[in-house]
């Protein structure tokens, strides 16, 4: 991996000039999403009897947001070129942690997706999404003039294949698909050969039946519910039917925060995690749902804008990866609860309850902020 040494240091940043480039909109949209998520988590948690002494979901969300925002500012302050030096160790760490999760992971909804350290569940598959963006960005930046060659696609693909297979084996189909989306989005933005991309994508799509065959029965059933939820209304498709009922019940303005009947009566079994958007739709209605989509659209717009103005490919790639992640996860998550996408376990960024996702995404946004702040040559 290339080692482009940069002169910008933490001390340099602290001098303050770079903070003038701080992208306040990026932070604003992120904060709006975090607040939205906390509010929905509060409502989803509203009628659930809490275990005495345990922190409520809302409080936990706010604690994670605080940790995440600290990381955001730390990452923003440091010139993002440290990524290039750390990409290899990060990659090894990702592989190690995902393998560790497979070995000692706690069982959550039938999938080994997290390990518990000091009472907190770390979902390394969530953390690995952002870390893999970093790894791929370094790899693509180092490709230099060779970016258009087939070897770029093959190399990036191989880099991504190992962690993708590890999460797929957990089994966590959703994260595996997010990896693929990140890979394709980043290659596309990086300038990889469209022709080769199309051919390889075609091959991957052609192999999809094989992947589907490798799924567990319950995953397969849930996957196909969206085609016709009535195939198994009491079983595999129960969640989807309840989700559709909840979304539809929202109408124009919703039933009001903490007043959604489907939500409060527990008809949405994982309402605070993957199905959080059903709570938004039921309680805040079409208007609330569109507002949330709008915030996501603004955020993605900012992320891509920062990528466009990045001073090198490394920064551009971080933005491309994050944008791909955001668009894909929003599409799959909301598409899932509105019955146009198959049901896979993909969280709604910043909104879905979960510390690993929240903290790692905020960290990723911090790196992006650094890309923004280091996009121009400071003049003294």
């Amino acid at each position, binding site marked *: 991996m290339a080692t482009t040494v940069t002169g910008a240091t933490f001390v340099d940043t602290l001098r303050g000039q770079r903070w003038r480039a701080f992208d306040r909109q990026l932070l604003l949209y992120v904060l709006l999403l975090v607040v939205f998520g906390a509010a929905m988590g509060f409502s989803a948690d509203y009628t659930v009897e809490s275990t005495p002494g345990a922190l409520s979901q809302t409080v936990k969300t706010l604690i994670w947001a605080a940790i995440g925002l600290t990381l955001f500012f730390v990452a923003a302050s440091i010139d993002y070129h440290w990524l290039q030096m750390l990409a290899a160790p990060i990659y090894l760490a990702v592989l190690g942690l995902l393998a560790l999760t497979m070995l000692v992971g706690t069982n959550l909804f039938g999938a080994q997706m997290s390990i518990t350290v000091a009472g907190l569940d770390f979902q390394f598959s969530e953390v690995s999404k952002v870390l893999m963006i970093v790894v791929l960005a370094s790899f693509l930046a180092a490709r230099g003039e060779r970016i258009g060659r087939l070897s770029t696609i093959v190399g990036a693909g191989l880099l991504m294949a190992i962690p993708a297979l590890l999460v797929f084996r957990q089994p966590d189909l959703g994260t595996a698909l997010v990896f693929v989306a990140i890979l394709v989005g980043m290659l596309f933005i990086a300038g990889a050969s469209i022709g080769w991309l199309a051919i390889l994508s075609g091959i991957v799509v052609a192999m999809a039946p094989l992947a589907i065959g490798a799924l567990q029965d319950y995953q397969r059933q849930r996957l196909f519910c969206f085609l016709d939820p009535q195939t198994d209304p009491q079983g595999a498709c129960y969640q989807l039917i309840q989700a559709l009922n909840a979304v539809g019940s929202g109408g124009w303005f919703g039933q009001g925060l903490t007043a959604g009947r489907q939500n409060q009566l527990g008809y949405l079994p994982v309402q605070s995690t993957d199905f959080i958007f059903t709570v938004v739709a039921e309680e805040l209605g079409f208007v609330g749902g569109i507002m949330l*989509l709008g915030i996501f659209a603004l955020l993605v717009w900012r992320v891509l804008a920062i*990528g466009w103005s990045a001073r090198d490919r490394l920064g551009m790639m971080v933005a491309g990866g994050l944008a791909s992640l955001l668009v894909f996860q929003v599409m799959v998550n909301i598409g899932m609860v509105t019955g146009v996408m198959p049901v896979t376990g993909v969280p709604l960024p910043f909104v879905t309850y979960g510390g690993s996702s929240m903290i790692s995404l905020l960290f990723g946004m911090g790196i992006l902020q650094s890309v923004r702040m280091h996009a121009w040559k*400071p003049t003294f």
Partner: protein
Amino acid sequence: MADPNEGRSDPPRSRARFVALYVVMALVFSGLGARLFQLQVVEGAQYAARASAARTVEIPIRSPRGLLFDREGRPLAVNIPSWTLYARPADLPARPSDRSRVLLRTADMAGLPVSTLEARLRAFSGSPFDLVPLARGISREAALLIGERADELVGISVDVEAVRQYLNEQGEADGALLSHVLGYTGPVSRDEYAELAAEGYLRDDSIGRDGVEASYEESLRGTYGEQLWERDASGRPVKVIETLAEPVAGRNLVLSIDARMQRVATDSLLWGLGVAGVAQGVTMVMNPQTGEILAMVSLPAYDNNKFAGGISQEDYAAYLEDPTLPLRNHAIADIYPPGSTFKLVTGIAALEDGVTTASQRWPTYGCYQIPDAPTGQCLFDWNHAGFGPLNMVQAYAKSSDTFFYQMAINVGLDRLGFWAGQLGFGERSGVQLPGESAGIVISRQWAQSQGRPDVFTGELAQAGIGQNVIAVTPLQLLNAYSALANGGRLMRPMIVRGEADATGTLLRAYAPEILRTLPVAEQNLQTMRIGARQVITTGHAYNIRDLRLPGALSGKTGTAEFGTPAADGSLPFHSWFVAWVPSVPGATDADLAIVTFSYAATVRGNVSLEVVKYFLQQWYKLDQDIRLDPRDFSLVAAN
């Protein structure tokens, strides 16, 4: 200091590709927005309706079952709280070890073997969100204890529901006094539920069995209401959305029964059967004017409170295996030869059909030669010496068998059958109680069913004295004599007088119903009534004439042979006594008629007569006790 621009590479960037990504995002997000618009705005109402339908459940509101009172307003059947232990399988701990710990603790608190609870749980086949009744009728203390420990006993709950309690004349729980009259309520069986569901019965509902509980089920049950509840995802009802229909309470009924009289009748019969060493018997009292049944005792009785609380297998099996048939109401469900009491029918038939006049005397015999039978084939009179010539009143009073053989033969088969039918034999009386039998009256069809063209003359003669091919229920016999006592109206026997308020005050009386007015001349009925009076004064009824009753007791005894002869050729027999109390001899103003039937009471005296005597002594509070021991005719009071 390093140059901050060192390493800046300004890579080639494709505007087209960025734009393409923007376009992808725009398409994805507007697609999702459009889908939201479709789901929430266009089809929103539809989904909302579907969601609320899937989320709501119609829960029936049980109506309180109507109470039962006796004619004096004494409560006989009331509803009391009973605690039932439930489990909801879905809420029980999933780990087998936790689950059995919860069941073990529950069983311990309820004072039941844990195997019982586990068996009930295993036997249940419905939804895991349904409540499974584990034990009914647990103690109030256990119920409260389990209720307090609800958070430890996950998935276990206790609910209170109303069950029946049956009371005696003192208002004490006593299932034996009126078990056959009241019946009991019991759970709807799975097979019945298939049919009853359409009528609004619930899977764990109860329904009246036997007695008035069964025959007045519709009135007593009332109409269940219905509430629309919202339930949470685990199926637990959370809040009422609306009441779709209020429940209508079951009607309270006042029975024609007088519980105190029932007690007196029961005690009298128990004494008589006890003396005779038998177990089965009937005493019934009726108001001949209205057909109201004032007392209806069938022994042995059963304890209907055992059924109300959910009878155990052992108790139920014991009832079923008891050869004295405690579960059967012998007063209406079983038929017996009426013996000499049936001479009323033969007598009326002979008078009405002109076979004889009231004053015409007929020879009687020690043994009556059957016409058209070989010489020597004769039928004995109970008095093997014969009585000499007798008219109807005398023959009835002395109960001459050979007199009535001649009457029956001269009346003929068809007309004897006709008159039996007129007096209500061979058909159900229509009393509002389940399980009534029609009885058997001799007929040509009966003979043909035996493979013969006609009955034998001897059979016809024996039918004339209530033997052989005649079988009646005690109720039919009492009703026929009530028609004689009231001047010729055959009433439909009544067991329920009408509807009452919650305190037992009659609000709406049911009208007595005349089944038919007997097509019998008044003077012929009068002849039979005088005959029945003479049964008491000169005939066959021993010392009962000495009772200082406020009226002229009239009646008829009967002994009816049945079964297989003993070693000495004698047959066991049932004893009957039927009587009423008019103000003066022959009057039609009696308001009390009584019948007693003692099954297989094969002793020298008439046990039934002594039972009635004992009843009358007590009921009319006579300061005398002239009961005779039916085994040796000694005065009971003297012993």
